[in-house]
């Protein structure tokens, strides 16, 4: 069954944290609750669970790939065109190390970017309920749940003193 989404908007971060508490008391799980803000709040400001990630693995994989490409490029091109220049050996390690170093760093940076996007779950294609006021200072608490628990979610959001509550079948809904 398709899930329904509701978004409560709060001027105050504490009210948003209360909304999250209300939802949890009504047995909504962390996976069903999302907190949206235009500003990075310190971790745990809304009582949300610790966010784990494996971003630090990505640069190492990228560095290994970049190093390999750099090594293959410098080895391959010199062996394919074995012309002695400047009296240096065909496989001259110091210049190879420079290209390999740049390749390693480029690989690490590219994979880090991919890691950031992957771990941030971006790009986000599926549209859900959203409001532009979030980037104006409001904090949004969004719940996505089964239709039979939807009323409980709306009540929990309103009880925390939401300035506005929007939900997914509302006409003219602002979405991302």
């Amino acid at each position: 069954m398709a899930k329904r989404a509701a978004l409560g908007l709060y001027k105050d971060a504490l009210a948003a944290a209360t909304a999250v508490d209300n939802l949890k008391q009504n047995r909504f799980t962390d996976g069903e609750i999302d907190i949206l803000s235009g500003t990075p709040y310190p971790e745990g400001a809304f009582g949300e669970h610790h966010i784990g990630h494996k971003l630090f693995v990505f640069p190492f994989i990228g560095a290994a790939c970049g190093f390999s490409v750099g090594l293959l490029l410098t080895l391959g091109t010199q062996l394919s065109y074995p012309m002695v220049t400047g009296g240096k050996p065909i496989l001259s390690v110091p210049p190879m190390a420079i290209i390999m170093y740049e390749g390693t760093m480029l690989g690490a940076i590219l994979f880090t970017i991919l890691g950031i996007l992957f771990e941030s779950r971006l790009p986000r294609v599926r549209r859900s309920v959203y409001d532009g006021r979030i980037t104006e200072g409001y904090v949004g608490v969004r719940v996505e749940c089964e239709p039979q628990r939807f009323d409980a979610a709306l009540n929990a959001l309103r009880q925390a003193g939401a300035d506005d509550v929007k939900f997914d079948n509302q006409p003219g809904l602002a979405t991302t």
Partner: protein
Amino acid sequence: MQERVQLSDAQINRELLSGVLHTPMWFWGLVLLLGAVVGVGVLAAGVLIYFGVGVLGLNRPVFWGFLITNFVFWVGISHAGVMISAILRLTQAEWRRPVTRAAEVLTIFALSTAALFPLIHTGRPWRALYWVFPYDFSRGIWPNVRSPLIWDPSAIFTYLTGTILFVFIALVPDLGMIRDRTAGWRHKLYSVLSLGWEGNPRQWRLQAVAGILLSALILPVFVSVHSIVSWDFGMAIAVETWHATVFAPYFVIGAVHSGVSAVVTIMALLLWIFKLKNYIRPDHFDALGRLLVVVATAWLYFYVLDFFFGMYSLEPQELENRTLIMFQWPMSFLFVLFALASYLIPIPLWLSKKNRRNIPLMFWSSILVNIGMWLERFQIIVPGLLRKQAFTFTWANYSPTIVEIALVTASFALVGFGLLMFSKFFPLIPVWEQKEGQLLKDDVQVGRARVPGLVHD
């Protein structure tokens, strides 16, 4: 940072996104002016390509002149972004917030402009592809990786790619803000660019980690780029006066000196043009000024070191080169100008806090530094080549032609044009970082003083 004013999120949005959402008339005037100067540069490049390198003032033995000087200069300027941004992010320096993006974007445009110059300098830019990129395998000929001229493109490509991605990742939350404030095609464009950003805790957490991780990755690249540029000279067998082991750190610290000075110039321009007095304050110039005093003095140390190494070895080429630079007209004039502009005038000025907080003074003195640093690169490159040869027919003087002067002038307009166009589509001060600074600012009573406290996770 004791001077911040309390700003609401709506006010920060309104003030920092005004350049993106509204276009004042002066913007188009400036675009036209800078565009015209860039157009002159394009014309000069066309003349060079059509008539060949004979239109440049180069002649044996001076084969590198204004264009390569300008290349080194702009690579140096490009070191501002990462130096400022990465180090300040890693150390969580609070005053970084309004400075980082302008510095990073300056890196992008300065580096792109720098990369144009060796290509233009060849006179046949398309042929550079044969030398640089490993694609011409049909003839079995590959680029010579033993040449420093191949190391340069690999370093610049890595640095430019890394910086663009660094800027983009930090820009995503701001793109989401612009998306929420636009309609029609602009809304669609920013929706795509913001990648569906919503600002949930996971995205913010990753954004914070990304800033630190990318800073740590890009700093070694930043050091490598100007080291490699210095090896274009240091590893050249034929020019004895370039054989200096201190060239790599000397170039890197010189790049930071000119780059951070360029950031001061840009910050002052941003403040005046976009009226951002709530964000760019005298204390930012004070902090940058203090940093510059340290950086400039470190640079002076390497300059003196390079000078003494040359003198102490008593190599005739070194002695001849220093005599040419310091005592023979017009090089002696340029030397005095360089010494005054790059260190002797600005640094004593910046020792005073009052002067560091005087924004017009900082603006003009930072420009002075970059005049000096441009001349420094010229003095490294041209006098080193301009030495007496065994036969008089292989010994000529160097003076730039109008084509070279036009290209160098256009490069400044091109960087300005790039920054201006960027400011039309993206905020030059990170909006979300400003909001974070406001959020984490909470006054703390210390004795009888109330000072802003800041917490970081």
